[in-house]
């Protein structure tokens, strides 16, 4: 406990140089602007910033990326409240009550609620990041090939199940991601798979260009394909958060913080599910259900706390298992690997202070959003009104140059283009992109774990189901699949009712 506090204090002290604070504030602002602009997502922001921070020392680069991530998730609330357009998918739930408050002339109060909810959500998530990461790291040391195999399958299946509206399409996207990860030289014998003699494909599909394509280029095309909208911004009152709102809804804040953090830990699910789940839970528990959707302070607080608590939550599996909890966390994972940080079960052994460094980075990001939340409202309103035709070509140029900059390979620009076009088509066919990204990240882990596991057991499948953690993960995969089959769901419902009958009588 005290070791953790000392580690955290040391990390804050190590980041307390003027240069680092400037990086944190600058990155939070960039994140906020990216998040506030509809069409630019947190994933794209973090991916583009990864390419811009390649030459920086690892801690500075990761500080910038985390501040961008937190800033972008918070920034999405601005356009949700002012324009009724979620700046990022995570802010979709905030539109319901945020815009309703804005229409009542309370946009400033709504922004204040978003600021307080986001900061408190980040802090709750930070607390659990510091608390759970060492514990999960300890548990992750027990993971072998069998457990990692099921973890990879679970990640793709649960992400496919929760991130879109159609689980089947989510799973297809996830498995396509796993297939993409198998392109190039495999990890055991350096054997070329699906390269068709193309030399550049031997190195595999790099994650960052693929992500920049899917979340950057595809977004540019998606925004430009529709006619620009005329934005009308309602008048707004003071943006200073009210202590009364926080004190009155402290239960909602803690509940949403816990839900957001937990959903963040689940691989590949992300902030939008966290926001909707927190919103739905707040509504169920609320004494003022009728106000939800009509300008409920509690609803907005729940959504904003939930999505920002998800950010530190999504970093927990990145650090302990090298499995991302959300799409932007997948970019963060890639950035850590690029900068020579090796996240995974051994992080608490090899680099224990890094966990507290990440917690300190989150704290700096929350301070950044507090400062900008209180001061930059007018500037952000002006930025929201900048025509998309001026921003989007610059974003595309950054997508192209950023993809190239990582390895100075023109091939990566082509990867970005192909993923952008394919990503646009798939999104229009309702295939979610988060499972695809998670599949690309987890493909190598799944491939090596299955083959290594089978080799160790000499083809015996028992260890895949017989070891406790592997069994639990397998059951979770099975339950997730069965829940989507109507007959199985009905049978499970009847079985559960039968099991619970004696308790109900009692």
């Amino acid at each position, binding site marked *: 406990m005290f070791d953790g506090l000392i580690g955290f204090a040391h990390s804050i002290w190590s980041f307390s140089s003027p240069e680092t604070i400037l990086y944190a504030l600058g990155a939070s602002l960039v994140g906020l602007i990216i998040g506030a602009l509809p069409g630019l997502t947190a994933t794209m922001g973090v991916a583009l910033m990864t390419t811009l921070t390649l030459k920086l020392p690892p801690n500075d680069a990761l500080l910038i990326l985390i501040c961008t991530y937190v800033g972008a998730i918070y920034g999405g609330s601005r356009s949700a409240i002012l324009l009724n357009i979620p700046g990022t998918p995570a802010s979709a739930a905030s539109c319901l009550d945020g815009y309703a408050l804005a229409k009542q002339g309370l946009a400033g109060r709504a922004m204040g609620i978003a600021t307080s909810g986001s900061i408190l959500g980040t802090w709750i998530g930070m607390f659990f990041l510091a608390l759970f990461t060492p514990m999960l790291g300890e548990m992750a040391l027990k993971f072998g090939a069998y457990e990692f195999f099921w973890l990879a399958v679970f990640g793709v299946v649960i992400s496919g199940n929760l991130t879109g509206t159609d689980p089947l399409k989510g799973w297809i996207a996830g498995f396509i991601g796993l297939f993409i990860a198998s392109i190039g030289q495999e990890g055991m*014998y350096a*054997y070329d798979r699906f390269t068709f003699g193309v030399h550049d494909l031997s190195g595999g599909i790099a994650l960052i260009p693929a992500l920049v394509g899917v979340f950057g280029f595809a977004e540019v*095309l998606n925004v430009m*394909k529709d006619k620009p909208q005329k934005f009308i911004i309602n008048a707004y009152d003071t943006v200073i958060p009210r202590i009364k709102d926080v004190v009155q809804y402290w239960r909602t804040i803690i509940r949403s913080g816990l839900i957001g953090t937990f959903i963040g830990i689940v691989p590949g699910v992300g902030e939008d599910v966290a926001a909707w789940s927190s*919103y739905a839970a707040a509504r169920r528990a609320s004494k003022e259900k009728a106000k939800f959707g009509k300008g409920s302070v509690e609803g907005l607080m729940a959504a904003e706390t939930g999505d920002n608590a998800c950010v530190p939550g999504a970093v927990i599996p990145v650090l302990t298992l090298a499995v991302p909890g959300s799409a932007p966390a997948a970019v963060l994972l890639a950035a850590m690997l690029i900068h020579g940080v090796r996240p995974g079960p051994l992080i608490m052994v090899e680099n224990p202070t890094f966990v507290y460094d990440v917690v300190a980075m989150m704290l700096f990001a929350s301070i950044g959003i507090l400062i900008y939340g209180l001061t930059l409202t007018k500037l952000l309103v002006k930025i929201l009104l900048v025509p998309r035709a001026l921003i989007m*070509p610059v974003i595309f140029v950054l997508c192209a140059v950023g993809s190239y*900059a990582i390895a100075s390979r023109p091939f990566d620009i082509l990867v970005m283009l192909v993923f952008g076009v394919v990503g646009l088509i798939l999104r229009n066919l309702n295939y979610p992109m988060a499972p695809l990204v998670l599949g690309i990240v987890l493909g190598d882990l799944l491939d090596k774990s299955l083959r*290594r596991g089978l080799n160790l057991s000499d083809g015996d499948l028992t260890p895949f189901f017989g070891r406790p953690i592997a069994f639990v993960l397998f059951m979770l995969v099975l339950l997730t699949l069965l829940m989507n089959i109507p007959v199985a769901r009905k049978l499970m419902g009847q079985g559960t009712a039968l099991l619970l009958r004696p308790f109900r009588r009692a």
Partner: protein
Amino acid sequence: MDDSQATGLAAEESVSPRADFWSSFIWIGLGIAMLWMSLNMDRLERFQASIYTAPGLVPGLLGIAIALMGVILLVRSVNAGALRQRERKPLVLAQHWRLIFSLSLSLVYALIVVASALPFWLVTAVYITIFVIVFQYAERRAKAQVPRGIAVAVVHGLLAGVLIQYVFEELFLVRLP
């Protein structure tokens, strides 16, 4: 508003069963191709490699899974009426000019950046200028501001081109293509 409605707000537009019908063939085809290629991959037995570590094992299993999910999508789309929908909406390319133009211009720009010896800042400036002029033309014409719109586009393009080249080449020490 109930929870399902709330969740529904986040949902994307529904896709026609016919689109699912045709995309299912792509997944079935891809899955079968993956399985076939995996079966034909070297099993490296001459290096005493275990059959369980064969490079084609995982892609083969993935191929089976993708093909299977493609079949489920196919059956589902047929049940949803993919084959019953006879009337086809003609594709009017002019309605999609924004997407076609932004995609074509961006692809041409990327190919010129990769394959030509032209200075990066110049190609970027021209790309951004054309992009801005075309997409702002209708609005500028309605306000009788076409020359001003062109001037803004040129300045924006030049500034962005020079600045991006400077940042990447001078600050990040990346040699641009």
